[in-house]
């Protein structure tokens, strides 16, 4: 069994999906360069008011209460992608028949969704969630399913053998006739599929050729053919072109929220989640600053600037509200800096997170909430200043970097000490950050006295120097000589205190520093 899925008046639906406020309005879409722009699609309400396809934009604008929008290929592409995702959410076997039509192979889905009626209902429901109003017809062959979907609103199941009867009342326009063919049939007085099916096929072929035979078969509900299965795509993108540039974060958030809703809806349809969200904003060209500059600069300025950001998510998610908060925080910290004329959001997908944790693992805060909290902190302290300190792969002493904080619990294989290995007794060293500047007196190249933090220590014992140097190819190459010094401090009359310090000489800045003290 096949489900023919058809989005009626697709151009209008795509426009409404991008701007839900137009849902209840009389809408006319225009296309073409001014002043030759003409109406290419109109909503039912607009048609009732008298707007016709092909009408000049100026004429359509005369109708009070009719909203006029420029046709947007971006929105249509996005709506088509949503239609495809809807099909794949039900079955992996799907045909991308046309921009507004898909066919889904629903055979064998009974155990998941129920009977054909339930499958059609599910498709309709999922379509509504994606912002599309659909006709869904389940039939035994692709031709019948498609033909009926173009003519029957809502859902319908055509039982095998009853195709001709169910199609008989539908107008011949559902067969997607060429202009010439439509004229011929009109002249013959053939207005329904039933009337066409009633014509003798031999005579029809003599007058209309093979095309006539094909249409006759379709009108009878005999449209069996092989399905051209479409490969599921892996890109999830939503775009929006703005008529008026947006500069403030609040209105931008509103638009981003809408795009994220659509994106998450599509991800949900495919049982996926986003691991990375890529944002791309095209910025309004800045003319005003280039007025006094040379022509080349003006040209360069006219090119739209692009502002790109990437939101790495620690766990894959598809909660549109949560994502919007994270995106907002990211944009607050790094605003685009110019009015935005086009928005594109793309999601890198991953499998949805499995939330079941082990019974004996400690509980962690919810990953999404944690990410939001970290983003808020980053917004205050700056990106790169929040996370986990990680030692860098270098010989440079005390070198570390801040990496993203991840709450995911990793099961670690704890290494057992090698058999026969002697237990190591390590001393702990408290590191001063920042290091303390010191003055060191040397004798025979060895420290004998150290002055730091208002104290004077005589060296009782010294070990070293331990030399490190590296990154000689960079300007900030380092070279240090480190000593472990046992220092004796006089604390009172005849009393002294001994402590062990780690002291180093930095050859680059030619100074001595106290790095830490041993416990």
């Amino acid at each position, binding site marked *: 069994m096949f489900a023919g899925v058809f989005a009626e008046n697709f151009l209008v639906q795509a426009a409404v999906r991008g701007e839900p406020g137009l849902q209840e309005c009389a809408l006319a879409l225009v296309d073409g360069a001014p002043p030759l722009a003409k109406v290419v699609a109109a909503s039912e309400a607009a048609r009732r008011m008298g707007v016709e396809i092909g009408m000049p934009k100026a004429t359509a604008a005369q109708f009070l209460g009719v909203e006029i929008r420029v046709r947007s290929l971006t929105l249509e592409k996005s709506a088509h992608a949503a239609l495809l995702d809807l099909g794949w959410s039900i079955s992996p076997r799907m045909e991308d028949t046309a921009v507004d039509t898909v066919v889904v192979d629903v055979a064998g889905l009974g155990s998941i969704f129920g009977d054909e009626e339930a499958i059609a209902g599910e498709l309709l429901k999922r379509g509504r969630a994606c912002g599309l109003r659909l006709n869904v017809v389940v039939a035994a062959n692709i031709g019948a399913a498609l033909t009926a979907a173009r003519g029957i609103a809502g859902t319908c199941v055509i039982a095998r053998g009853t195709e001709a009867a169910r199609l008989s009342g539908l107008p011949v326009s559902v067969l997607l006739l060429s202009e010439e063919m439509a004229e011929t049939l009109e002249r013959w007085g053939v207005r329904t599929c039933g009337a066409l099916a009633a014509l003798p096929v031999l005579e029809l072929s003599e007058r209309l050729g093979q095309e006539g035979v094909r249409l006759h078969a379709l009108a009878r509900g005999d449209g069996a053919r092989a399905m051209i299965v479409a490969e599921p795509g892996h890109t999830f993108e939503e775009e929006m072109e703005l008529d008026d540039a947006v500069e403030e974060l609040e209105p931008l958030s509103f638009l981003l929220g809408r795009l994220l809703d659509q994106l998450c809806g599509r991800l949900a349809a495919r049982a996926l989640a986003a691991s990375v969200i890529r944002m791309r904003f095209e910025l309004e060209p800045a003319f005003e600053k280039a007025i006094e500059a040379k022509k080349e600069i003006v040209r360069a300025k006219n090119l739209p600037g692009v502002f790109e950001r990437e939101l790495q998510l620690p766990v894959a998610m598809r909660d549109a509200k949560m994502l919007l908060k994270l995106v907002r925080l990211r944009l607050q910290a790094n605003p685009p800096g110019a009015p935005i004329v086009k928005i594109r959001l793309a999601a890198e997908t991953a499998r949805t997170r499995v939330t079941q944790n082990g019974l004996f693992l400690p509980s962690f805060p919810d990953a999404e909430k944690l990410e939001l909290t970290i983003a808020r902190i980053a917004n205050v302290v700056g990106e790169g200043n929040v996370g986990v300190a990680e030692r*860098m*792969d*270098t*010989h440079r002493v005390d070198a570390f970097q801040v990496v993203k904080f991840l709450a995911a619990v990793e099961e670690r294989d704890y290494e057992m000490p090698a058999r*026969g290995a002697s237990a190591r007794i390590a001393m702990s060293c408290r590191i001063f950050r920042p290091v303390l500047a010191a003055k060191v007196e040397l004798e025979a190249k060895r420290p004998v006295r150290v002055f730091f933090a208002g104290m004077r220590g005589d060296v009782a014992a010294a070990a070293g120097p331990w030399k490190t*140097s*590296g990154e*000689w*190819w960079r300007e900030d190459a380092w070279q240090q000589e480190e000593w472990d010094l046992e220092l004796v401090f006089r604390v009172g009359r005849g009393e002294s205190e001994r402590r062990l310090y780690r002291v180093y000489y930095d050859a680059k800045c030619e100074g001595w520093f106290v790095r830490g003290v041993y416990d």
Partner: protein
Amino acid sequence: MYTELHARSAFSFLEGGSTPEDLVSVCAERGMETMALLDRDGVYGAPRFHLGAKKIRLRAHIGAEVTAADGWRYPLLVETREGYQNLCRLITRMKMRAKKGEGHVFAKEMTKLGGGLICLTGGEEGPLTHALLHGGAAEAERRVHELCETFGRENVYVELQRHLCRHEEARNQAALAIARKMKLPLLATNGVSYAQPPQREVLDVFTCIRHHRTLATAGRLLSRNCERHLKSPEEMKRLFADLPEAITNTQELSARLGFVLSDLGYKFPDYPMPDGETQTSFLRKRTYEGMLWRYGGGNERARQQLECELALIDKLHLEGYFLIVWDIVRFCREQDILVQGRGSAANSAVCYALGITAVDPVGMELLFDRFLSEERGEWPDIDLDLPSGDQRERAIQYVYERYGKLGAAMTANVIT
């Protein structure tokens, strides 16, 4: 006085930053009279090291770091000619059963071919460090015991290196404890990887190439500091002021190492003889047969020249060499493969009589000493030109069949 007995050259391929000549010249500058070169799994650098040292009257000890099955390396110094032969055999066996850059020797091979070799306990890649890291002090002691059993107690030295690194000192203390317990001699070395401190940069770049990394991503694979250079005896004495015997032992060990590369004892191979013939008599017969073919019977000048050349060949024991070349040329003639000797061999009447060359050196009054001279002390070489392709391959296959796959080898050289 200190002698550096553990140094790598650029012939350790991406593990050494200086040429052997650089090492010997810096060694002389630092006031040392002897030095040892231990390249990784090879003695490729030894000839240049030996010749470089000879020029400035330095004594060059030869050795190699030979990879063991577990990945660590035996640092081996050659004490005697037998030791050099054993070392070459070990490396050859190892290379012949593995891909380029891989392979290792087995412990039983080392037991069999360990004669004439001195084993050090090594630095970072040595057996002692490996055992300490993988099994602690007890395992390290066991490993040193094994070395003593393989090479003999008197031929094992516990090596100490000080590159001013914290972790290295812990290793030295463990090595010291083992040496004291087992009553083994200590030996200070600097595990030299380059001649002068600035060449650390070359080594770092080599390390990146070896590990397929960039300088920015190599991290701790790179050197910690610049201390792996050739240090003067004074510097080494300061470093090992607490262990003076480790320094003096370098002198003692150096004195033990009697082998130098000029003492190879190489002998040219013999030609397989028919019964009742010696190499000399057989060569003489073939030469006189050739004389009749080339000069006829009555050319006294040619006979005198041949006698003179045969006498020198006999004195230098080179009959086998001439007969082997004659045999190859004879095979080519029989198979209709064009063959022609060229170069200085054309100055030899024996080569002309044996059909190796085509120019009459007697008639052209060419100087034989240009080819072979007792005073010059060099070995002769005879170049044969062969047509490329299948015919040359047939000649090559003949040599392999006649002398065995281990008795013949193909080499390539790059003339720079």
